[in-house]
């Protein structure tokens, strides 16, 4: 029995160590500017994912055999000073194990797809370095036993996502979209960090075990009041909304499709987009302490689902349509969590992630698939007309169409009322500062005003 428990711990460590070593291996060569061959990268990726997957499956098998529902792998006390401590701890339970296995399976499948899709692409090495960072982030977030460890994984996922959206870096479009996504993620990260610190203060702990009660997931009860749960819950909901593209942040999801198809599939069809829902599932014992918060969660989930359905109906490219289809399902999953159906939400999440990944990887051959189907049935594919259409008047239908086409005006709303005024304010401050420094200097104070927008060529400098 003791040996089996030790073996389970060892496998748990191996599941986490595999992606860590992968990042270290690929990262060191990137820092040294040494280009690895595609073959070496592929082997390293495969070895890490297979090791991680087998270890996770081993943990699951041993948990089932031993009847253990909650296994804690304690790595170390990372920081410990008077009044502040952070532990690195991982938890294997009914929520984390399926999500970790899902992460390994889908990243493994998409990595294999990506190896062919990106074969001889100039940024092959860069793609897989970021992909490894993403894998590490997902595994860390899935298995996190403390909110700080979860935050670590959360940030790694965010950074790799934004940089992969900007993967095709010769065009300005992907990098603009990457920046927009990074901006939304930073808001989400800020909300999560604040929630983590506030929780730490309320309970004196960052460990989920103590934060959410000792019982294995989904049992447990948080030892905070309804008001405290509402405040922290709102922060966590904001974090989840940013990461999963819930209203009002839904606008970033179609922008993310600028990245290569493999990363779109695994990030926005399968794993990354569900990370917000996973966070809500993880802290669900805390959320249910506040009925008001559950109502907000259900409303937000349903609103997102409806808006995503409408926006998805009018998309003209398959990747955007699939991303909105993903979003509508994520909205429903969030509503399910708000209603307290945790297992339903978990199963929904796992099934949806697998289906959507499959659809994304088939997306490049969609026209071919359509032609095959049409040839098989001998006519054009039928266009379904919903019965709801007959109940809606023409002006309403037009309004809904515009709303859908503009994706609920969410992006333009954020641009006009948040980003625009913010940037405008600071540009005005900058202009005022220019006047002030010119006055104090008694001359033009900014040499930088004369700079050309593009860099000088080295030949000019020589």
């Amino acid at each position, binding site marked *: 029995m003791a040996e089996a428990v030790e073996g389970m711990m060892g496998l748990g460590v191996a599941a986490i160590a595999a992606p860590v070593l992968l990042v270290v291996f690929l990262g060191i060569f990137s820092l040294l500017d040494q280009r690895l061959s595609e073959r070496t990268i592929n082997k390293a990726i495969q070895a890490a994912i297979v090791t991680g997957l087998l270890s996770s499956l081993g943990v699951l098998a041993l948990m089932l055999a031993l009847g253990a529902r909650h296994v804690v792998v304690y790595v170390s006390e990372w920081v410990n*000073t008077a009044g502040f401590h952070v532990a690195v701890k991982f938890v294997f339970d009914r929520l984390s194990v399926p999500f970790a296995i899902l992460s390994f399976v889908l990243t493994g499948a998409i990595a294999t797809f990506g190896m062919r899709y990106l074969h001889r692409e100039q940024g092959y090495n860069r793609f897989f370095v970021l992909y490894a960072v993403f894998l590490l982030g997902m595994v860390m977030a899935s298995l996190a036993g403390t909110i700080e460890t979860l935050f670590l994984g959360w940030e790694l996922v965010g950074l790799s996502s934004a940089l992969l959206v*900007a993967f095709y870096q010769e065009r300005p479009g992907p*990098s603009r979209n990457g920046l927009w996504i990074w901006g939304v993620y930073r808001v989400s990260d800020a909300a999560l960090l604040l929630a983590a610190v506030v929780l730490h203060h309320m309970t004196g702990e960052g460990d989920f075990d103590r934060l959410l009660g000792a019982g294995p997931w989904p049992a447990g009860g948080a030892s905070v009041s309804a008001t405290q749960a509402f405040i922290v819950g709102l922060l966590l909901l904001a974090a989840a909304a940013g990461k999963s593209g819930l209203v009002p942040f839904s606008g970033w999801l179609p922008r993310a499709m600028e990245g290569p198809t493999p990363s779109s599939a695994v990030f926005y069809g399968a794993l990354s987009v569900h990370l917000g829902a996973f966070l809500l599932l993880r802290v669900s014992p805390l959320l249910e302490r506040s009925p008001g918060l559950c109502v907000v969660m259900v409303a937000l989930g349903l609103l997102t689902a409806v808006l995503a359905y409408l926006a998805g109906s009018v998309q003209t490219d398959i990747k955007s349509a699939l991303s909105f289809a993903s979003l509508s399902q994520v909205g429903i999953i969030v509503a399910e969590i708000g209603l307290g159906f945790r297992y339903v939400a978990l199963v929904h999440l796992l099934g949806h992630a697998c289906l959507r990944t499959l659809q994304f990887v088939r997306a490049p051959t969609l026209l071919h698939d359509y032609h095959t189907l049409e040839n098989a049935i001998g006519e054009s594919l039928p266009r379904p007309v919903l019965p709801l259409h007959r109940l809606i008047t023409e002006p309403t239908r037009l309004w809904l169409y515009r709303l859908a086409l503009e994706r609920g005006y969410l992006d333009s709303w954020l641009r006009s009322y948040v980003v625009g005024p913010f940037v405008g304010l600071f540009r005005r401050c900058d202009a005022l500062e220019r006047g002030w420094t010119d006055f104090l200097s008694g*001359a033009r104070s900014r040499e930088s005003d004369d700079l050309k927008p593009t860099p000088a060529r080295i030949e000019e*400098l020589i």
Partner: protein
Amino acid sequence: MSPLPIPWLEAALLLALAGAASISWLRNLNRAWRWGVAFTGAVFVCTLAASLGFYLQSPTEADADGSLQQYLFGRPYLSLDKLNAPLVPAVALLHFLTAVATSRTKMRSYSLTWSLTAEAIHLAKFACKEPGILVVLLATGALLPLVELINRRRPTRLYTLHWILFVGLLLAGWRLLVSADGDALRTSAATIALLAAVLIRCGVVPAHCWLTDWFEHSSFGIALLYVIPLSGVYAAIRLVLPIAPDWVLHSIGLFSLITAVYAAGMALVQHEVRRFFAYLFLSHASLVLVGLELHTTVSLTGALALWFSIILSLGGFGLVLRALEGRFGRLALRGHQGLYDHSPTLAVCFLLTGLASVGFPGTLGFVAADMLVDGAVTVNLFAGMAVVATAALNGIAIVRAYLLLFTGARHTSTVSLAIGLRERIVVLTLAVLILGGGLFPQPGISSRHQAAEEILKERQSYFDARTKGRKHPLSASYAVT
């Protein structure tokens, strides 16, 4: 096992001064650079030995054989304690790495004499606890930018105005404090004057324009070396924090918090790399001051750890920008420059050092930022929110700059623009320190925690002595000097 009982700190200072004097005679740029690297390297080794000696509890500077301070003054005015023991070698390392990473295109504009003189003054400042000497060193050190601006024939009026204000307030505050002799009104006036001087030196809004102007007109390497060690914060800890009543600290906190958010917002809209860096630096420096103001053990530990992280990560970030400037001249942030393919390593280091400075997980600044937020939330939830918002804005500004500089259509060059060997050594050294400190933060945090406790203890004993009507050693040290 302790290092040899040699006054390492004094050796470092003398080497820096000797280096500055000898290099000023050299006219050959390459020779001057080689000697400059040798001197800055030797200074770094000496400071490292001094720091190791402190932690291994070897004989102090005063007890060491041949201590010049002991011989001249009968007591050591410059020595290491829990606060400055890691800061002194960090500052020396920054000078050394800056000298090593100086490319040929930058050698003409980067004065090694200036750098070694500044290093000597910085090291003396950071090793000094005596208020009077510290005031003199701060005032003298603030003259160096003026020398640089005059040498480069750039406008000096703006900096001179700030220098006069800073030095005037510093001297007035110190003078008032020395002559206060327990008088509450004079002590308050002195504290306000010192506070104002510190805020000007730290570049707190609205007295921050000297810093952006400094980055506009000086050589980038020299600008970095002058601001990155955060002398203003050191002055705040040594001169203001031990004696300032709570309302003074709250004022520091308020001004710094406003500056942190304002500078983070300004960094987001800049059209040029140096100004972007200047605002990023201002925002970070202000966050350290916010941590001081909260004066809880956790927040102070966080602030001190963040300070150390800024020296390495923001210093490294500046060196990466300087390396880019060495290749392409001053860079605009108006369009996409497409520099990634010329040097992927610089791109990776840009992200690594930049994100480390905003406390990205796994890097040196993460635990520091976390502790700072924790301390801020303890005192005031809104302060905590402002700190988090600042970190978020700085993170966006860094990735925006990354995307503007490194993505976009690439241009072909007939000359290789890849990272050179010396630059590679520098960035790898910094990467190891940033990631090593991030993955194994406990030793660093413990050291900063001890320093924080010592500072708070000193402050507490000062106020206890005042309450009981006794004269505190700190008041005596003001009087002595």
